């Protein structure tokens, strides 16, 4: 296989292929980061004279029931959702990878105990557990992050443990043991790098999930304070006007939830392919 690849093609620089999802994710991140810095408008500004205006040039996404500009609120809501999504997914992945790798690398009774704890946590519905966690704190961004992270590390722990178990029985681990590697070195040098692609992928796929979770909590009125722009809050607040036929306060925040999640999921799929070490040296187009 490798012999058919010519020497020059093998060392061709890896140029990231432009993709629709990549461009969308970049756009979403840029908008979330730059707009609040560049546009000196207050997303909380109330204009009771312009309540529930349909989309127009002055308000491209229309206004909500107290006359706040929906485009601006969507962007601020996106910021919150991205923050929650990325931080919670990262935290959940770190915890899940550590626990899963520990269980898989130690094996035996340690593995059994840890995995029973994971089972115990998974047996409670995520949303219920999440609600329980946010209920213990004052409303804000951090309780939501903790709640999402706390309920989402379980799947990563399972994935990582399964992967570690399958790697552990490979002869190259035997070779490392015979070569004098300590347990720690085997874990850090051979097992963890082997599971990182899976863990990274799980993290990226968890970002949309975390965004949805945040929206769900906010929709139930348990997430962020209601005045704070968050995509979940906005969809929740728009329920009444949707029944009255005003579609824009629901549609735009809804799109702001859907588009980034799809883009991130698409990016994750591309990333999974590139992280495979076998494909690292394939010639890029």
């Amino acid at each position, binding site marked *: *296989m*490798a*012999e058919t*690849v010519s020497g020059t093609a*093998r060392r061709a620089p890896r140029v990231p292929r432009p993709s629709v999802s990549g461009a969308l994710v970049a756009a979403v991140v840029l908008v979330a980061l730059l707009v609040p810095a560049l546009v000196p408008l207050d997303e909380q500004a109330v204009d009771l004279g312009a309540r529930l205006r349909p989309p127009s040039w002055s308000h491209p996404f229309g206004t909500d029931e107290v006359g706040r500009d929906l485009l601006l609120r969507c962007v601020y809501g996106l910021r919150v959702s991205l923050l929650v999504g990325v931080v919670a997914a990262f935290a959940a992945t770190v915890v899940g990878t550590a626990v899963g790798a520990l269980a898989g690398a130690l094996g035996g009774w340690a593995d059994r105990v840890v995995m029973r704890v994971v089972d115990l946590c998974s047996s409670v519905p995520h949303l219920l557990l999440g609600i329980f966690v946010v209920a213990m704190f004052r409303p804000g961004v951090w309780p939501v992050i903790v709640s999402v992270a706390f309920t989402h590390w379980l799947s990563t722990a399972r994935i990582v443990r399964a992967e570690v178990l399958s790697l552990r029985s*490979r*002869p*190259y681990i*035997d*070779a*490392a*043991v*015979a*070569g*004098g*590697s*300590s*347990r720690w*070195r*085997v874990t850090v*040098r*051979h097992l963890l*790098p*082997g599971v990182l692609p899976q863990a990274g992928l799980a993290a990226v796929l968890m970002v949309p999930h975390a965004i949805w979770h945040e929206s769900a909590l906010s929709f139930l009125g348990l997430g962020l304070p209601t005045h704070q722009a968050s995509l979940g809050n906005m969809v929740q607040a728009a329920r009444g006007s949707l029944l009255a036929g005003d579609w824009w306060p629901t549609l735009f925040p809804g799109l702001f939830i859907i588009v980034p999640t799809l883009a991130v999921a698409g990016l994750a799929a591309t990333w999974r392919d590139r992280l495979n*070490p*076998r494909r*690292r*040296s394939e010639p890029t187009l």
Partner: protein
Amino acid sequence: MLELSRITAGYERRAPVVRDVSLSVAAGEAVGLLGPSGCGKSTLARVAALLHRPYSGTVVIDGSPAHGWRHRAPREQRTAFGVVFQQPRLSADPRMRLADLIAEPLRATGRREEAGGRVDELARRVGLSAELLRRRPHEVSDGQLQRACLARALVLRPRWLICDEMTAMLDASTTAALVAVVEEYREETGAGLLTVGHDRTLLGRWCDRTVRWEDLAGAAVTPTAD
């Protein structure tokens, strides 16, 4: 002297693959273990290399008995063995370049500074070019990868070599080259060799003594399915 006595080992306690087997290799001796596939000879080799804990029996390495296996074995005891496995693809970490693969045991045992010179020397010995050393396992052939795996087994200058079907996946010329490397190393250091295989001719020529699996006392008579 490497002495395995009354070893019973396997992957399920009620149906061990190796039953009450004894085998010893004198210092500097080359012993070939012949057996059909699935008979348990690889398991015995893993037990000898302290990689698989037997259910019962003792392993004595140069006079000191083994008390633990894998990570529970003291490092000096573990690194007394250089192990080469049958399938180079599975015995090489896919993320490591061949140079790192060979140097890894030195780094793992805190002898990082020796790595550069030792890797070059061994690469020359097993016939790997500098260009090949920069490649990852999937970019080289089975034979080239097995050369790297042999170099890795030799890098810590082990007193014992355990070759588990080392040449089963290789063509005749690579087989000859690798056997020559092993023999050259043994001549220099006086290391002992336990090699496992089913090629009677090869083992007959390579080893001082060949042992047939059937002749080992108490060996399982019926080979298991796998």
